[in-house]
């Protein structure tokens, strides 16, 4: 339960570390709760990004401040994790969302966007005024 090495930490650093730790962990929890709670996959794919952006950021900042103050030298190698996760997570989620949309289209599920929205709208607009009003309705 005790952390004897944390005793010689100044108070401001302790408060900063504690705040970043709690904020980061709390945001990660909110993201995971949303991932458990939201209804469709396309909603759910957004939720874990909370944990990978500011969840990781907060805990990485806390670790950097803690070891920098404790070892009296700049300790910044944790930033590697932050950069790596922030760079790779959009790629992963994009790949996964594209795979999901591909599978949904292959099974002809409803509630999936049309194949090429921009081109479909162009064709609709060129075929007459009757579809022009539909275009204004956002179809």
């Amino acid at each position, binding site marked *: 339960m005790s952390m004897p090495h944390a005793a010689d930490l100044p108070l401001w650093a302790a408060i900063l570390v504690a705040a970043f730790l709690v904020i980061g962990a709390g945001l990660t929890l909110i993201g995971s709760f949303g*991932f458990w709670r939201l209804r469709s996959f396309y909603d759910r794919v957004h939720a874990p990004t909370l*944990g990978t952006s500011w969840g990781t950021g907060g805990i990485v900042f806390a670790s950097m401040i*803690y070891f920098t103050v404790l070892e009296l030298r700049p300790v910044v190698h944790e930033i590697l994790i932050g950069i790596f996760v922030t760079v790779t*997570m959009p790629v992963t989620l994009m790949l*996964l969302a594209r*795979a999901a949309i591909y599978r949904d289209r292959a099974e002809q599920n409803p509630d999936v966007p049309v194949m090429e929205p921009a081109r479909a709208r162009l064709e609709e607009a060129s075929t007459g005024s009757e579809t022009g009003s539909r275009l204004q309705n956002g179809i």
Partner: protein
Amino acid sequence: MSEMIVVFAVWVAHGTLALAMIFAMARMMRGPRAQDRVLGLDTLYVNSMLQLLVFGIRTGSTFYFEAALIIGVLGFVATAALAKFLMRGEVIE
């Protein structure tokens, strides 16, 4: 005083991240489809990586950093490969 603050925050962070891992695992168990399970595994990877970082702060050693970095890299590769598999039916064509 400062030790007490950090100890309290570290245990709160441990508990919060454990709860987040439970939520991710519940979604991974429940599905309903394969992409949900893959995303649940990815969330679980990230949460356990953060858990390891907090563990490093608690023990005051920097060794856990390497484990966290490896988990992050492996999570990315595993999720990318699984997404490719879901789309194509095979990983390497």
